[in-house]
């Protein structure tokens, strides 16, 4: 397994390299990082534009800039992915892209982690229940809810969830659900129970929004996969041998039915990361989603590249973890 893991990690390097080239070229061609400066009224001194251009390495050719971005060789000490430096920012000379990402990563992981856990749990539960009660009223209801969730745009659903939170607060006369912020500051000085309720107040609504789309598609996959397994010969044999239904489902059917979901979840990481952009915006969490929006707004090409590379690496890692989990879920799979 260790050899397999190392081989997969090494195999990811050319993929990441290719991703870096594509990311760099697309962002580089997408616009002028100094566009805002050039349209300022009154117009800035041409010398100011020249200085900014040099600071952002815009005075170099595209291949040269890519080399600088990757290695930092020939730069001003603020650039070089391989040295852990993401490059200068258009937002200000002192804006540290790496430090900002590190700071925001925890915020986003908190949201993504909670959303993934709940989405997975609910998807497995509803998928299994739907499969076991195929064509029942419950199955139809869960199917309807799943498709409804799939059809709802995140920004619109987020607004609805926010409004529901406010209505709940008005109904019970409290301010339990918070609609903006991640509550970090509000948690200071609170008791452990206070911190727990504070976290619950700030996390519940965005978590519901972020988990929704993933839950909906994952539950459909889980239902299909479970149906396929329940109708397979070895499950029929297990039932024929007189094993209780609970044991058949838990021990024999569910484990196998989780394998396709593992793949779907790994691929779905990209969708969750996309979802954080809108969710964090609507709920005003200063995570990586908001970092992305800020970078787009400020034409901050190096910050955008950092975000895209981080997302790409996350998806590649998620796929690696999924591959390794196959062996855990299905003992027949061995890594050589």
């Amino acid at each position, binding site marked *: 397994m260790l050899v397999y893991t190392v081989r997969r990690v090494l195999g990811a390097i050319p993929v990441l390299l290719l991703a870096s080239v594509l990311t760099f070229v697309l962002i580089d061609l997408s616009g002028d990082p100094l*566009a805002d400066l*050039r*349209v*300022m*009224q*009154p*117009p800035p001194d041409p010398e100011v534009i020249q200085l900014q251009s040099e600071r952002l390495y815009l005075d170099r050719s595209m291949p040269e800039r890519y080399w600088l971005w990757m290695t930092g060789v020939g730069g001003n000490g603020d650039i070089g992915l391989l040295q852990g430096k993401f490059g200068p920012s258009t*937002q*200000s*000379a*002192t804006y540290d892209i790496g430090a900002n990402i590190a*700071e925001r990563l925890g915020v986003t992981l908190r949201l993504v982690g909670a959303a993934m856990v709940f989405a997975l749990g609910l998807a497995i539960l509803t998928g299994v229940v739907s499969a076991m009660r195929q064509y029942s009223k419950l199955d139809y209801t869960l199917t309807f809810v799943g498709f409804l969730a799939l059809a709802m745009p995140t920004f619109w659903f987020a*607004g609805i969830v*926010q*409004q529901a*939170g*406010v209505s709940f*607060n*008005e109904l*019970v006369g*409290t*301010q*339990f*659900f*918070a*609609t*903006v*912020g*991640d*509550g*970090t*500051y*509000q*948690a*200071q000085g609170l008791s452990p*129970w*206070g911190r727990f*309720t*504070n*976290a*619950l*107040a*700030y996390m519940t609504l965005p978590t519901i929004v972020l988990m929704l789309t993933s839950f909906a598609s994952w539950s459909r996959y889980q239902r299909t996969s479970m149906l396929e397994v329940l109708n397979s010969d070895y499950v029929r044999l297990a039932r024929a041998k007189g094993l209780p239904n609970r044991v058949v489902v838990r021990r024999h059917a569910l484990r196998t039915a989780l394998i396709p979901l593992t793949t779907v979840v790994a691929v779905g990481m990209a969708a969750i990361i996309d979802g954080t952009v809108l969710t964090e*915006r*609507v*709920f*005003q969490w*200063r995570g990586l989603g*908001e970092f992305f*929006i*800020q970078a787009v707004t400020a034409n901050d090409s190096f910050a955008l590249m950092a975000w895209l590379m981080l997302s790409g690496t996350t998806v590649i890692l998620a796929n690696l973890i999924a591959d390794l989990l196959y062996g855990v879920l299905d003992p027949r799979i061995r890594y050589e």
Partner: protein
Amino acid sequence: MHERRKTLALAAAGASAMMVLTACSGGGSGPAEGDREITWVINSLPAAWASISGAGGSVYTVQMLSGVVPHTGVFQPDGSYEYDLDILAEEPVVINDDLDEGPFQYSFTLAEDAVWSDGTPMTGEDLRVTAMMYASPDEGYCTTCDSRGTTNADMIDTMEVDGKTITITLEEGLSDPEWMSLFDSTSAGGGFYPSHLAEENGWDVDDPDQLGEFFTWLHEARTEWSGGPWMIVEGDLENQVVKEPNPEWWGDPVQLDRIIMPFNTDEGTFVNAFNNGEFDGANPAQFSTDVVTQLEGAPNATVTIGEGNIWEHIDFNTENEWLQDVELRRAIFTAIDRDDIASRTYGEAYPEYELKNNHMFGSDSEYYVDHITPSGQGSGDTDAALEILEEAGYELDGDTLMLDGEQVGPFRLRTTDTVIRNNSVQLIQAHLAEIGVETTIEMTDNLGEMLGGQDYDIVEFGWSGFPYFTSNPEQFWHSESGSNFGGLSNEEIDELAEATGSAPNRDEAAEYANQAMEILVEEAYVLPLLADPQYFFVNDRVTNIEDNLNTSLRATYNIGEWALAE
């Protein structure tokens, strides 16, 4: 089956208990019980901890530092100017404004009991060091200070400090009618800064490199000092700042325990968060009809809308062969119906909109003179416009305006692609079609390049203006100004613009500015439309609070006086 029901019942009971318990605990939003606390939203992220630099100098930074950075004066909501006599011992004085007698000279004296939050007295040295940081690097005070407002400081020749007093002498032959702005709320840093902290950190302020380090430190280190009624006790530039009373404040005590200023970048969240009691109000920089309409329906909200500091106008490119004819320009301006444009763009949410009839001064200004209405420009009077054209030799051939058998135009009518401006130019196109003038609408996403390259015939865009005005005429309309995009060249306007900038006081400067505008209207070069409205909303539980559109501080201009209703 029985076991499953039991499990479900337990889960339901657990969930209900959790909801009840967490509901009882009040969750995380809302002030701690008994605290007199206000949450005031700033609707974008401040880029730095000081507003002197170009990068840090946004209205968001200025508002975040309200009640913290001391300043010598501020324009009031009614347009009048008030010195801060908590900070100053007396109103500052002009020692000499007669350039024949000697150089322009003025002085400020700080209040005897004015101290920083660490107990160090405020002195003239704080003012001197601040002025040095405001000046451009060419002045030699500071190598790396990239101040966003250097005009006043660059005129300074010498500064003499005597305890609490600073006497400032301008370079020979220069006068500064807006000298009082050097350390007031409109200055680059929104006031003045504690010089003793430079020394405490080991920097020599008279060394240009080390003053640059102090400048950088002020922008990068969280502002833990204060010279006003409030001080920042925690926070960062990403989420929020928390202010508590400055224990060393010597003025009237504040009436709150805490002010929280969260940074919220999405106006779409305002209504829910406000209704949920998560914040008490805001003065957003952008106008959003949807948000305003929803807030106006909130039971506990006071919403006000007023003229902001960006004013829209229509300009000609006088280098277009047709538009060199002043009669044609007058006719076009006369045919444009400003009221139609204003009512269709802002009328729904802001029916009280006011058309701008003076390029510099709002109708509440003491210097206001209506230059536009008597001229008939912007009235949409098609008959009058056609009469002007007829007298000048133009004639209509069907729906087309002709001169000497040749079609006049068509003209490229350009602006940036916003909903408001998009609607606006479409209306202008329709108005001009009434007098046979054909236009083609072209949007741009690069306003600077379009204006700088004179890549338009008729253009709509905005200028930003504040109560300080003396440098504006020279910048906007002087024939040698890089910002006189349409290329108008008029010697009289040049002279009056120069006189405005070098007048000994504001009253005289305003007279010159108004004379320049009178000629400008005769030239039919710039037609002001209206100032973009801005809104403010606040929970009714907050008192002593109002919007102030005459300063970047907006409603926070009197943050020391905010209180909660009894």
